[in-house]
Structures are given as structure tokens and as C-alpha cells.
């Protein structure tokens, strides 16, 4: 009973906060609701027994990605009136994307209802007696090693690409060279002088 209660609470909160992400007027509030949605989906993962995924969801999405979202959204000066004006213009294409997503979801759920055994054949069930962290590690670093490494390489390339695209070399910047600073010696830089009173240097 308590599990069912927890499930309905997390599920309701996920959906409600997802709706609020889209409908709230203030973009910072949207990001906060997005974080709430992530949190509740992490709760759903815990209920499924996938505690590793739940924690990774919080660490990666809430702890890093959403912080950057928030960072950007807080700095932007968004004009809401202008944003609303484009609504009708984008409605057809947005509706199309929504429709395709709905169809795909229905296909998944339909397959699930009509052939319940189909879903389990594609999965690698967690072996008994080990935690799902071990199970995930064992499968990622053996069966899917090349795909895993490829994903890592793609992310690395994307990161380098983003840096290359946004980096600009400014001229006339005086940069501090830490090595030079550390190499300085008191004897080279400080000079002690005896000053006679009333004379100055």
C-alpha cells in the first residue's frame, strides 16, 4: 500500500510539475519546476529498484545540467509579450511533433499490452544477488564497451567543438603567468632602505 501511495505521489508530482514547466510565466520558475520533475522521476526510479539511475539522474541533471539552465535563464532578459506573439506561428509544427510523440508512446504501450512477453526479451535482467550498480557496470564494460567508448568520444568532441566555436582570442589582455609569479624571489623584488627622518628617498 505504501509503495502504491508513493508511486502515485511521485507520478502525480512529475506530471504536475512538467505541466507547470510549460505553463508558468516566469522562466526561472519553469526551471525550478523542471528540477522538481527530475526529482520526482528519480523517486520513481528508486521505486523501480534502479537506485543507481535515480542518483545519477539527480547528480547529472539536477546537479549540473539544470544549474546551467538556471544560470542562462537568470541572465536572459526575456520579453514575454514578444514570445507569446509567435505562438500561432509555431503551433502547427509544435502540434506535429506532439502528435508524433503521442503515436510513438501509444505504439510502445500497445505493444506492451498486446504482447507482455516482448518487453522482457529485449532486457538484460539484473542477476540475483548483485546490486544494480554492479550489474550496469558489468554490462557496460563488457557487452557494450565499444558503444560506451564511442559515446564518450562523441561527448568529448562535442565539448571541444563548443569551446572552439565560442573561444575568441582577445588582443591586449595582460595575463598572469603563474609560473613566473612563483619563480619570483624576495631578494629580486624587495629592497630595504634606510630612510633618514625628514628627508624622504
Amino acid at each position, binding site marked *: 500500500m505504501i509503495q502504491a501511495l508513493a508511486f502515485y505521489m511521485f507520478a502525480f508530482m512529475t506530471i504536475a510539475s512538467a505541466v507547470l514547466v510549460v505553463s508558468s510565466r516566469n522562466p526561472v520558475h519553469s526551471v*525550478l519546476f523542471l*528540477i522538481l520533475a527530475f526529482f520526482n522521476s528519480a523517486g520513481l526510479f528508486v521505486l523501480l529498484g534502479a*537506485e*543507481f539511475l535515480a542518483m545519477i539522474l539527480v547528480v547529472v541533471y539536477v546537479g549540473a545540467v539544470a544549474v546551467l539552465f*538556471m544560470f542562462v535563464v537568470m541572465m536572459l532578459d526575456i520579453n514575454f509579450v514578444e514570445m507569446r506573439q509567435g505562438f500561432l506561428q509555431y503551433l502547427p509544427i509544435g502540434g506535429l511533433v506532439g502528435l508524433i510523440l503521442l503515436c510513438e508512446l501509444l505504439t510502445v504501450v500497445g505493444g506492451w499490452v498486446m504482447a507482455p512477453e516482448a518487453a522482457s526479451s529485449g532486457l538484460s535482467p539484473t542477476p540475483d544477488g548483485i546490486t544494480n*550498480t554492479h550489474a550496469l557496470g558489468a554490462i557496460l564494460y563488457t557487452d557494450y564497451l565499444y558503444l560506451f567508448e564511442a559515446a564518450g568520444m562523441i561527448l568529448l568532441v562535442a565539448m571541444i567543438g563548443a569551446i572552439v566555436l565560442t573561444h575568441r582570442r582577445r588582443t591586449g589582455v595582460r595575463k598572469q603567468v603563474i609560473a613566473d609569479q612563483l619563480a619570483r624571489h624576495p631578494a629580486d623584488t624587495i629592497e630595504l632602505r634606510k630612510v633618514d627622518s625628514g628627508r624622504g628617498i
Partner: protein
Amino acid sequence: MVLKERPVLMVDFWFLYIWPVAWIVIKIVAIIIPVMLSVAYLTLAERKVIGSMQLRKGPNVVGPFGLLQPIADGLKLFLKETIIPSGANRGVFILAPCVTFVLALVAWAVIPFDEGMVLADINVGILYLFAISSLGVYGILMAGWASNSMYAFLGALRSAAQMVSYEVAMGFIIITVLMCVGSLNLTDIVMAQKTVWFVIPLFPMAVIFFISTLAETNRHPFDMPEAEAELVAGYNVEYSAMTFALFFLGEYANMILMSGMTSVLFLGGWLPPFDIAPFNWIPGPIWFALKIAFCLFIFIWVRATFPRYRYDQLMRLGWKVFLPLSLAAVVIVAGVLVAFDLAPQV
């Protein structure tokens, strides 16, 4: 087997639902009250220690040796008026200190005080701690934005960048420890240090980890978000009375939490230094408290000793020094574990 239908008695209801919940609540209270008391006396200890380091006496007027000072401070903050600026975003403004405070407390759910003496002995304990500590940035970010003040906003932006940067290095150091343990469970991490505390084989990582926790808790010398000389008080400029007190309590509870995390990862948690007669008479929780107190003393010592870092140097230290070092540490530790066949069998 068909169970006989019988009316649900009040006794069943009590034993099935009410008693387990009540027992958990009792355990939570038994954790939170000592934590809050230590937070209160940590503020006093900090002022006393810094006072001694600067050849002053520190607070010594309220109560014997100033022992009632934290209570007087708390009462003062409690009785003051909470002011909400007219330009502030009310909901987020009030939510921000609550988030900071709650996050500082929920992390204690997985900290083991002794073998089996833990509220929730979950499989992914260290990841939970890491996740909660990475959420700490939200309280500060929300406070900075909702205050509608430039000083607060600048403090919040600095803090966000700083905490995200140092989390990366912390993550890699946690990975080096986990490779030596073979489990993400905090009790297992402590038990793996029975022969030798990880601070000895992994000494450089322990140092980097401790410095990263300084940055993660926004403590000196990395207290950029509240650099009073440039940003007045940073993200909490607009806060007063209890809302400010919640930030303050959250920051100090986070310090204790990070010291606890350092103790669990590197100083062997509740284990005595040597498993021989005079040492193992002292119960585990006391060893754990002593180790936390040792880490907290270093926190305060650092505060009294070092000048504040410049912001660009802080970023340089995080990304150009700690990140490569901790990444190299992961590779080196993994290499050593494999080469000498020391890796834990799981």
C-alpha cells in the same frame, strides 16, 4: 492457503503502520538534534579558536566561558523581524533558505555512526551524498535571483560556477576511493579501511578532496559568494532574522557533513586508529565525532590563516590543477590496483 477473514484490529494498524513510522521519526530526531547542537556550538568553537589564534579571548560574557553565546545569538535572530524586499520574488525568496537548510539535514540519513548505526543503509550511499551536496547550489542560486539585488545576484553566480567546478574534482576523487572499496555503500567504505585508513595510501587525494570541500561549502579561502569586501555579503545580503539564520545553520551543517564525508572516505569513519586495547574501548560514534571535530578544526584553522582567493585563481585551481590531478589519480590508482592485483573482488 486462504487466510481467514477477520476484522482489522487497532493493534494491527499500530504495529503495521504507526509504530514503524514512529520509530523512524524517533531515529531522525536522534540524528537531527545532535547535529543542530553541534552546529550551534561549532559557531562558538569557531569564534573561540579564531580568537585564540589572533590572541583574543573570543566570546566569554554570556554564560560560563561564553557557553550560552550560541543560544543568545539564536534567540536574537528568532526575535527579529523577517524583512522581505518589495522587489523580491516572494515565493522563491522564502523557499531558498529552506532548501539550503533541508538539504544540509537530509544528507545525514546515510551517514553511518557505527556498524549498523545508520538511518538508511542504502547501496548507493556515496552517490546520494554526492547528489545532495551538488544540490546545495540551488539554495544560493535561488536566493541570489529572488532577492532582486545585484550584489546578491553576483554572489549567486560566482557560487554556482564555483560549486559546479569543484564537484568535478570531488567526483573523480570519490571514484579513486570507490575503486579501492568495490562498493558504493558507506558502511562498506568504512569497513574496507580496517587494515589501513585511505588517508595513508591516497594521501594526495585526501588533500585535494579536503580543499574541494572548502570550495563546495563556500568556506574561506574560497568564500567568493559572500566576499564581504566586494559583495557586501553576497547571496544573503537581503536576508534577515530567521531566513538568514536558516542559511547560516545550513552552511555550518554542511561543514559538519563535509567533515563527516571526509572522515568516512579517508579517516576510517568510526574505526579506531589501531584495533588494540586502549583504542577499541572507546565506542565508534565517539571516534567518528573526534574525526569530524578534527576536520572542522582544520576548516577553522584555514579560515584564520589564509587570505581569500581571487576569483580567476579559484577557477584556475579547480579546472587546471585539481581536475587534471584527480583524473590522473583515477588512472594511476586503477593501474596500481590492476598491476598488483589489489582490486577488490566483487
